[in-house]
């Protein structure tokens, strides 16, 4: 019970710190890759604090509602993750956040936000089946959807599910909105639809979304870490390597279209899942 309480507290307080910190490192490394110096590591925290200090302007009250629910969904999914509950449950709870992010974007008749929201929907459409397949294959290895079963499993999942891990990183790239999949909104300055789904969010409301995004980052990196759950060092190595690869891809790739994404990620993702599963049964 005490352990659980501590875990919940850590999830509530630690996850955003970790997520913000990751975002800071992200910006720093990205800058370095572009031969720039980059902002301080603390920059994401400054940004969010500033946003909370700004005047509140919104297009309507529904957007405020959506932003809060998005945050609640993201936080709850991280808490469930730390409590080692059911993977599918975690996934569905984060879907609450995802849908309300879209609804918040669609709340405004603005064309930029609308297009962004539609693209966000396509992004969800692309990664959702892959994530479910990842969880199902994890189940077929560990015999349970619970995260605790992964810890109980003696070999790292990576050994048995290498291709599934790659499928997961596709979902990760989409979820983190990195190139080539950053068309609903991007973390870089300009894009063709202003700031996509987040165009109409501003000030404190944008701050909420940003914090929610930190939680989501932690969740998705945590999922990656599960593939080497046998050793803490392994987890850290895996996260670091994945995240770094993510950044390289982000900087080396151009933004593609959603049609390409849907076709490419579904076909490659499904193919890799099937190959991995056949290999699993053949062994």
């Amino acid at each position, binding site marked *: 019970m005490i352990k659980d309480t501590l875990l919940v507290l850590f999830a509530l307080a630690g996850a955003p710190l970790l997520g913000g910190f990751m975002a800071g490192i992200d910006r720093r490394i990205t800058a370095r890759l572009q031969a720039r110096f980059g902002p301080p590591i603390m920059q994401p925290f400054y940004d969010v604090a500033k946003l909370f200090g700004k005047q*509140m*302007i*919104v*297009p*309507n*009250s*529904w957007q*405020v*509602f*959506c932003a*809060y*629910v998005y945050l*609640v*969904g993201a936080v*709850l999914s991280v808490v469930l993750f730390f409590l080692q*509950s*059911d*993977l*599918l*449950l975690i996934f*569905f*709870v984060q*879907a*609450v956040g*995802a*849908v309300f992010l*879209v*609804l918040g*974007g*669609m*709340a*405004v*008749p*603005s*064309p930029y*936000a*609308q*297009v962004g*929201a*539609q693209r966000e*929907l*396509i992004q*969800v*459409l*692309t990664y*959702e*089946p892959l994530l*479910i*397949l990842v969880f*199902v294959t994890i*189940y*077929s290895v560990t*015999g*349970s*959807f*619970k995260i605790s079963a992964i810890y109980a499993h003696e070999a790292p999942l990576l050994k048995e599910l290498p291709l599934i891990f790659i499928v997961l990183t596709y979902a990760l790239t989409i979820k983190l909105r990195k190139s080539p999949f950053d068309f609903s909104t991007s973390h870089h300055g300009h894009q063709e639809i*202003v700031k996509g789904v987040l165009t*109409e969010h501003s000030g404190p409301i944008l701050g909420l979304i940003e914090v929610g995004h930190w939680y989501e980052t932690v969740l998705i990196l945590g999922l990656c870490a599960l593939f080497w759950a046998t050793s803490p060092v392994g987890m850290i190595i895996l996260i670091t390597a994945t995240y770094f690869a993510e950044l390289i891809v982000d900087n080396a790739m151009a933004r593609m279209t959603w049609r390409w994404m849907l076709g490419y990620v*579904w076909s490659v993702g*499904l193919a890799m899942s099937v190959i991995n599963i056949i290999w699993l049964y053949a062994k």
Partner: protein
Amino acid sequence: MPSLLLFMCILVPIIAGVLCYLVRIGFARTLTVLVTGAVLTAGSLMLLGHGTFTYVPPSPWAGLVNTAITLADFALLAIMFGIARKHRSKLIMTLVVLQAVPLLFFELFMVDHGAPAPGFYGDNLSLIITLLVSIVGSLICVFALPYMQKHEAHLHLKRSRQPQFFFLLLIFLGAMNGLALSNNIAWLYFFFEVTTFCSFMLIGHDGTPIAVKNALRALWMNSLGGVAFVFGMIGAHHIAGTTDIQQIIASGPMGGALLVPLALLCLAGFTKSAQVPFQSWLLGAMVAPTPVSALLHSSTMVKAGVYVIFRFAPTFAGTFFSQGLAIVGSFTFLVTIALALGQRNGKKILAYSTISNLGLIIACAGINTPTALAAGILLIIFHAISKALLFLCVGTIEQEIGSRDIEDMRGLFAVKPRIAVITVIGIMTMLLPPFGVLISKWMAIEAASNNLPAVGMIAMGSALGFVVWGRWAGILMSASYKKGLKPEPMSAFVNGPLSVLAGGAVLFSLVLPWIYSLLVKPMLAFAPYQVHFGSLDSSIGGFTVIPIFLILAAGFVYALKQAQKTRARHVAPMYMSGVHSGGPDDETFRGPMNKIVQIETGNYYLTRLFGEERLTFWVNNVAVALLVLMMGGAL
């Protein structure tokens, strides 16, 4: 005791229907419908309280009922034949003859009329169906009262056709209850045919050429199901030697012999549940007035099909046929929701989503483990509530704004906030945790996780569903800020059913663990989930229903509180590159030559990928191939 309750559930609606037909006074009709609704609700609840029962009417009555039903059977077939002749449909005539002749043979030469006829049987499955039919169905009938008035005012009819409409509606409810509760397969067939007939009449109610065409399509497809049913029934009787459904089930599980008749019965269920390739009749059904679509799609007609499949599911557990059922079901789940994605007609989206969910329910029956069956039954319950709600919402919206195109519902919140919010609630209950439909879907995925093709299709289907529902909810709320927005007035007969259904969809999700342990668990071979602290838990997974419900509810309330703090001074117009014109609630910009241009936005419908005309051909062909494979597996 059961005799009275059975009377309340089956005969009262039929008598009330006749009353509606004969007494052509609006007020009397309203009263009849309300009283029938109350009686049905009370009857079904008391029946539930009574628990599992077997009831055979005392000796002279049992035979009389049996004879009456048999005679009614042939009368019904004769009427259908007449209809077919009137419309010069050779196909339907053939199908009716194909039912009538074997049925005559069956009644004359096979059934031992001397033996005591089986009567009624109620276990939790049939009680759940009865409950849904009685309560959700009654709510829809109540909703239909003001709806039909408006509908007819719109059509400028000389002579009201409402008596006939409510006659059919109420008979439909009685027939559905009869279908769920009878233990005699011949009676089951009779009620099955009554629902076919009623749905034909109701779809064609408006009498427009398109309505007649679609009604005839519904009739021939369901008659095909009827033919399958007759042959399945004869086969089952031939092997099990009885018309008693419980005994037929008890004589299973057996691999070969009984499988063919069972497969035929399942095929009948497929047509009734409008599974691909039989989906077109249900899509056509939406030409009927909205209460009909709500009734056909949510609690009744289509649920009759899955009821039959679930009833016989234990007998074919573990067979190749069962696996085929799982694949066909999940295929339907995937392709029909993909078809929904290409649609902008609100009713069509709902229709496709209904077929899709029924596909998932059938897939659960095919997987046939206790977990899967639990998922299927929960889905039957929660889908009925949410879908009835959504249909009534679309009907209300259609009467308010004169369109069922979801693009026309853009920004409905700023015009009709009440119905917009109720619709969004309905959509959320279809899509998100902690609501029942999603929890059943979660259970279904966990149950399907050993069947890779099935789980893959379910995963993709649920992602497509996310887009379908997400964009619709988004459209409804896509409105600029309006100061002092007040909920629009609504008649009590509209508001009542909507509120009850919306409240039910939410609250029943909260008590889902108890629904599971009280209603669903006793039906299963073993309990897949333990319930403690309001959570469903097993070794392969767990869903903390109540805690998540409470936390999310608290989050919702807090978010609502924050949103309510919004004042006009917070509101700024949208960003339009600095050329936005007018105030915050204007959706215009200053274009070339200083012209004011209205902003227009639209959803992605991906018609190039998921368009109806593009996909349907392939879907139907694959579905036929899969069906043939599945039936072949039974042989």
